[in-house]
């Protein structure tokens, strides 16, 4: 129950005081939730008013839909306008089962859940290639395509004529209790599932996907499996609820069951209540459905319903994008802090803790050691631009290799190709003797390839500690259900944070950190993968000189422990003092390789950096 506020949203309360604050707000919510559950649970026993029973039944159907949607939209960041389709799928499965085959709801309702889950997983497969806008379009297409199939496949679905389900067999004294309580049970299970997902590795991976999907893949998160499972999880209970809903309605047709307004109602419930919170979708559903009933019964239905849904959707997006629960939490937290001393004293931009260290040993390997990474004939085109044009080089095991070159020479693209964030047009990459081009980014990460980004890419709504724990050095299905932050990993993460000097900030949300601090956290994050090769994209870019020296020290220390580095950097004193060998990239080709001294004298390098004008201006005295 405490998880009700342990959403990323609540995580933005800073400082140690936040724990106390969070617990206090948590208690307040818990009381509200307990009262709500008790009221809903006992309502049919104390009142035989069928109007309100019906309203609660429908609210629960939409709440189940919204709690499911929350898994992909709230946690994983994929907005769907087709969630209502799973209610329709569930209803059609039970209707077809009950009328064409016969048998008990105990068979068909679970079957509805399975079919919905499988279809959702299929949507997840398509969604591997469609993000953002494309995905929203896809979900609309999914919903309407199902509607057309249900309309046109007369022989199976009876088309627009619809299907009639068998009437309930229980005594009328029980009114709609069996529907009521089975939906309540399903809603409880949905919330439980959402809670459980959020607190284990799986949920953490989903949040990482929401925050930055490409980055998530480079820290070893198998985004493909995560997404497919998330989609399935978002639909199973919704399909079952759709089944119960079908029995409850006793008549279903394509226009009613695959109506986009069902999806609108679900997503509106989620947004209004608060996405990525545990109870937000439930709260939202219990607000929106009564409004829907009001529009239907007192305002003449149809058009009034459209105005209310559309208007509310627009208003929520414009004025309360976080939804009710997070907004109330902020307000409560602000009120709780009023009159007290400011936030915990420490200035966030304060000095990084430096620990006394022994002087690092000399680089562990000579530049001529066996190559750990080999790149051959790598090519990448963007439209007409040949960003990488046959780059070939190798990184000796145990070295600190630099990759330098003028702006636009293709360094970052080479990194993206090696890391798997982009796919090359030609060429091959070998890592530790294995071909890795063609592998997914997470496979490469699992083999021991870690990278940072030029502009730091952390998961902003997670804390520093969560960011460091998020990477996964391997992938097993069982690992998904492990605690998000388990004891051993947390210890290791603490050690790494200690190493980069950021331990003090472990519970800060990453969005509050300065740029230099973010670089340090990103380094700790990569180290969590226990990588053999660490690729740093401009580790010294945009940070102060003291910190640059500190990062240089850390690189030497890690190198002494046997880790190989490949570093892209423009800060020449830093590169030349730290790295050997140095590779030079120009116009997408590797044009030179050598020690710092050799590179500085190489005419091709001078030409690449300074251009032909420079050479023409030189006095000709050969």
């Amino acid at each position, binding site marked *: 129950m405490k998880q009700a506020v342990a959403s990323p949203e609540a995580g933005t309360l800073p400082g140690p005081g936040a724990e106390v604050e969070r617990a206090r707000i948590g208690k307040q919510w818990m009381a509200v939730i307990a009262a709500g559950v008790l009221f809903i649970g006992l309502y049919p026993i104390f009142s035989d008013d069928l109007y309100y029973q019906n309203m609660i039944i429908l609210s629960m159907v939409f709440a189940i839909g919204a709690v499911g949607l929350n898994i992909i939209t709230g946690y994983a960041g994929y907005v769907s306008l087709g969630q209502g389709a799973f209610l329709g799928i569930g209803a059609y499965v039970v209707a077809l089962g009950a009328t064409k085959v016969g048998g008990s709801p105990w068979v068909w309702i679970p079957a509805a859940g399975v079919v919905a889950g499988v279809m959702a997983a299929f949507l997840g497969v398509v969604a591997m290639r469609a993000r953002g806008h*494309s995905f929203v379009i896809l979900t609309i*297409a999914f919903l*309407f395509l199902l509607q057309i199939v249900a309309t046109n496949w007369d022989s199976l679905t009876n088309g627009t004529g619809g299907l009639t389900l068998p009437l309930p067999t229980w005594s009328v004294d029980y009114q709609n209790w069996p529907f009521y309580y089975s939906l309540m049970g399903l809603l409880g299970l949905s919330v439980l599932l959402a809670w459980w997902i959020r607190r284990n590795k799986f949920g953490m991976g989903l949040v990482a996907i929401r925050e930055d999907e490409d980055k998530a893949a480079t820290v070893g998160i198998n985004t493909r499996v995560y997404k497919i499972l998330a989609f399935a999880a978002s639909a199973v209970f919704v399909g079952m609820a759709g089944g119960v809903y079908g029995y409850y309605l006793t008549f279903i047709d394509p226009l009613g069951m695959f109506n986009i307004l069902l999806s609108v109602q679900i997503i509106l419930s989620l947004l209004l209540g608060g996405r990525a919170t545990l109870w937000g979708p439930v709260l939202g559903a219990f607000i929106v459905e009564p409004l829907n009933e009001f529009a239907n019964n007192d305002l003449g239905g149809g058009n009034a319903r459209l105005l209310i849904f*559309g208007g509310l959707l627009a208003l929520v997006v414009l004025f309360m994008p976080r939804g009710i629960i997070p907004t109330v939490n902020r307000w409560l937290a602000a009120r709780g802090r009023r009159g007290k001393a400011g936030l915990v004293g420490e200035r966030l931009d304060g000095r990084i803790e430096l620990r006394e260290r022994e002087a690092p040993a000399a680089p562990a390997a000579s530049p001529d050691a066996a190559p750990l990474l080999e790149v051959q004939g790598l090519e990448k085109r963007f439209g007409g631009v040949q960003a990488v044009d046959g780059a070939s080089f190798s990184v000796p095991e145990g070295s600190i290799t630099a990759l330098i070159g003028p702006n636009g020479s293709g360094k970052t693209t080479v990194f993206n190709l090696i890391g798997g964030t982009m796919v090359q047009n030609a060429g091959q990459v070998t890592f530790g003797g294995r071909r890795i081009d063609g592998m997914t980014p997470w496979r490469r990460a699992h083999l021991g390839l870690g990278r940072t980004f030029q502009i730091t890419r952390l998961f902003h709504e997670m804390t520093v500690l969560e960011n460091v724990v998020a990477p996964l050095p391997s992938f097993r299905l069982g690992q998904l259900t492990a605690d998000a932050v388990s004891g051993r990993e947390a210890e290791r993460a603490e050690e790494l944070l200690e190493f980069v000097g950021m331990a003090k900030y472990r519970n800060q949300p990453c969005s509050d950190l300065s740029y230099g601090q973010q670089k340090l956290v990103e380094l700790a994050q990569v180290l969590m993968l226990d990588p053999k090769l660490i690729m740093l994209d401009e580790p010294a870019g945009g940070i102060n000189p003291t910190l640059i020296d500190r990062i240089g020290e850390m690189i030497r220390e890690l190198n002494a422990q046997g880790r190989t580095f490949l570093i892209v950097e423009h800060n020449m004193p830093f590169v030349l003092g730290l790295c050997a060998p140095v590779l030079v990239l120009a116009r997408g080709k590797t044009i030179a390789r050598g020690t710092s001294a050799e590179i500085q004298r190489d005419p091709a390098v001078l030409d690449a950096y300074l251009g032909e004008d420079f050479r023409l201006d030189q006095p000709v005295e050969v």
Partner: protein
Amino acid sequence: MTEFLQALILGLLIGGVYALLASGLTLIFGVMNVINIAHGAFLILAAFLTWTIWDAAGIDPLAAILITTPLMFAFGWVLYSTTVGRIRKAPPAATVLLTFGLALVIEGLMGIIWGNTSHSVRPSYFNESFEIGELFLPKAQVYGGIVAMLVLAALYWMLTSTWLGRAIRASAVNPQGAELVGVTVGAVAAMTFAIGVASAGAGGAIASVLYPFLPGSHYQWIARLLGIIVLGGMGSLPGAAVGALALGVAETMTVTYIGPEWATAVPYVIVFAVLLLRPQGLLGSRLREDVAAA
């Protein structure tokens, strides 16, 4: 063969109308990174306006374009400044949901004003056809296709040959760069949105003669237009034109050879196929992802 030729020509004619409508949608996406789900609702609104003008004053629906286009332009401008413009920089999900909300509100208002019954605009030539050999080409479709092409040509001319057009294209390719050379991207975005809505105004007037419509028809239309821009490559104007012609032909072929009840499924099948096989669409290209960030 005649059947095939007939389907092909009718498909291309209707495709011309789709091209005009999809251009506005893809233009708005290109400049603002907003999928305007309300585009279908805008065009149905224009169709209702055309119906009222035709019904009350007897003005030919294709001539009514001269009235609906500026009206819709103004409407687009007002909507932009009151709603869409406020969240121009919000995440994509927010703008999709906002425009979807707007579409529902417009649908509800149209239902209140014109009722939820099917309307169609029937000028004098509605039931006449050109007969060329064995081909029967309905006059409404021929005129509609021609007018759509003319408006589309004017739009292309505006985008390629005027300062505003260059500013719009510059904002689409690189907003920061456009700011730096003196383009007020915010104002250009407002202009683009209004032009996009105006093109739905012109297209809606033409569509009112071609298909019967009711407030709820906008779902069908937005699906069709989304299918087109996904097929052509989102944000690409030539892509929208090619995608529109392809969809027009695919629809008439489906009607002719599979059955009219499956024609509505064509855009959805296209969306699935394109996103699975070639997510960037026919003419879209994948760009260097880090350009904007670097």
